[in-house]
C-alpha cells in the first residue's frame, strides 16, 4: 500500500503527551499538570 492510499493521524511521529503540549506552546507544570489557582 503506497503512502497515498493511507492517511496517518500521527504524521509519522509518536508524540508523547508533553510533545503535544509543547508543540502547542503550553508550559504546564510537569508537562501536563494544571495547577490550582493558588499555585498549589
Amino acid at each position, binding site marked *: 500500500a503506497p503512502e497515498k492510499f493511507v492517511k496517518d493521524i500521527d504524521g*509519522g511521529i509518536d508524540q508523547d*503527551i*508533553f510533545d503535544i503540549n509543547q508543540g502547542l506552546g503550553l508550559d504546564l507544570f510537569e508537562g501536563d499538570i494544571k*495547577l490550582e489557582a493558588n499555585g498549589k
Partner: protein
Amino acid sequence: NSIIGDHKRWPHTIPYVLEDSLEMNAKGVILNAFERYRLKTCIDFKPWSGEANYISVFKGSGCWSSVGNIHAGKQELSIGTNCDRIATVQHEFLHALGFWHEQSRADRDDYVIIVWDRIQPGKEHNFNIYNDSVSDSLNVPYDYTSVMHYSKTAFQNGTESTIVTRISEFEDVIGQRMDFSDYDLLKLNQLYNCTSSLSFMDSCDFELENICGMIQSSGDSADWQRVSQVLSGPESDHSKMGQCKDSGFFMHFNTSILNEGATAMLESRLLYPKRGFQCLEFYLYNSGSGNDQLNIYTREYTTGQQGGVLTLQRQIKEVPIGSWQLHYVTLQVTKKFRVVFEGLRGPGTSSGGLSIDDINLSETRCPHHIWHIQNFTQILGGQDTSVYSPPFYSSKGYAFQIYMDLRSSTNVGIYFHLISGANDDQLQWPCPWQQATMTLLDQNPDIRQRMFNQRSITTDPTMTSDNGSYFWDRPSKVGVTDVFPNGTQFSRGIGYGTTVFITRERLKSREFIKGDDIYILLTVEDISHLNSTSAVPDPVPTLAVHNACSEVVCQNGGICVVQDGRAECKCPAGEDWWYMGKRCEKRGSTRDTVIIAVSSTVTVFAVMLIITLVSVYCTRRKYRKKARANTAAMTLENQHAF
C-alpha cells in the same frame, strides 16, 4: 506516586461531563478508557447529575489535568487534538485521581539518571522530585512500565535521552502509552481501597487443581480432564505454552474413546452479574474429529427453578485441527448463573479431542471481530511486508479491512479501510461516525494483567481528501480496485490510521506474540449518539434525549438532561456556591445565604420591636386616660361634698 491527603480523593464513582467541544473520536475513546477502569479497579464513572464536584472533559489546548480532587465544583480535564488515545486518557485521569508522574517520586534517582544538560533551557522544573511528605509511592517499587512515566526523550534539547534508566533494559520501556501497568493498578487500588472491580467476573488458567471451582455435570456421559498435554495435541497448555516444566494445565474432552453423541459438561462456579451483559473469552484446541463440537450454555437461576434454566448461547463447529484458537461469546445474563462448556462427540474418527484453556469472563463488550495472524515472526521478519485482514462487516453493515504496515524497522502501523460490500446501496454515504477500535491483544491468561495496545479512529462524514472528494465516501466511488485471494474484485477506500501503532520492540514484549500468533481485536460501532449537537437521522434510543434538549439552552455551564421525558438543566455547583433557576441563570452561595439569614433575622427583630413599642405605648396611653378620668370624677365628688 500519589498526592498525600484524603481530601484530594474522589468518591469511587466519579461524576463526569463530556463537553460538546470534544472530538467525536475522543468521546468514544474516553468511554473506552472508563471501561478499562471498570475492569481493573473499583473506580467507576457516571454522567454528572448535580453532584458538588465533577470532572468536565473538554477539548482544550493539549492534554492536561489537575492532580486529585481539587473541590472546584467543575474540574476541567482537557483531551485536545492528538490526545484521543486511550492510554493518554488513562494517564490524565490518573492525574485527576491523585497521581503524579512516576519519575517525580522521592526515590527516582535510585532508578533513573536525569541528564540535566540535555534538557531544554528553562524546562528543568519538569524533572522536580517530590519528597515523601508531599507524595507517597504507597510502598510499591519504582515502575519503569508505568503509564505515568515520561519517555526518554522528554524535554530534550537534541537527540539524546534526558532520562537514562539505571537498568539499561528499561530505556525503551519507559514512556509506554499502552495501558495501566500492574504497579499502576496496585497503587490505584491501594489508594482507593479497592477489593474488587465493577466488570471483572472470573479468570481461569486451570493451573490449580480446584479448576477455579468449576464442576463436572452429572447428567452427561463423560468428564473433562485436567491435563498438561495430550499425545495427539496440544503438546502444552496455552497459559504457559510449555515453558514451565511440571506446570501448564488445561481441560481436555477426549473424544477418541467415546461414541458419537457422547457429551461432557464443565460448569463454572456460580456467578453474580451486575451489568446484564458479559463477554466470555477462551482458547480452544481441536485434535479430535472435525465434527466434534463445543456448545456454550448458560445456566440461569430464577426463583422457582431449582436446577436453573439452561440456554444454548453458541455452537462452535468445524474447529480447525492443530492450533489454539481464540473465541469470544457475548452473553446477556441478568440473574445468578453458571457458564457451561459442553463437549459433543461428533461423527468420524478421532484420535484426540477438544481442549480449553485461559477462560476470562467479564461484564464488558466483546470485540466484534478477531483477526488471527499465524506464523507472525516470519511475517515480522520479512522485508517490505504488509498484511491485509480478511474483509469484515460492521454491525451497521459497512464492509472494512485492516492493513498492518510492517515495512518500518522500528514501528508497526495499522490502518482502517472501508471496502465495497454487499450492503453499500442501503448504507449512508459518506459513512457517518463509525468508530473503529483496533486492539493488539496481550495474551496474558488473566485479563486483569493484560496491557492492551489500542487505537481508535472515527469516520467523519464531512472530512475531505486532498482531491476534494469525501474521505469516507463509498469505496466504489473513491477507492481503488483490488482482488481478494479468492479472485473476487473489490474497491478499497483510503486507509486511516497510524504508522506508530506500536514499536517492534514493544510488540515483541509481554505476550503480544504467543505460540507465534497475534490477535488484532476489532470493533466498529456507531457513535452517532455521542454527537449531541447535531441531529442524526438515526432511530437510536438516545435521539429523543437530544431532541428534548435541543431547544433548551442552559446558562453558566449547566447541562441539559432529560428526566421523565422533559428537558431539565442540571446546574453546576461547588462546595459553597451553586447556580439555580430553570436555566441555571441565578447564582447562589453560602455567603448569600448567611447574608439573607442575618438580614431576615434583623428585619424580623426590628418589626417585632416596633410592634412591641407601639403596643406598650398604646397600652400606657389607654391606662393614662383611664387614670385621668378617675381623678376628674373624684374631684367632682369632692366639690359636691364641699
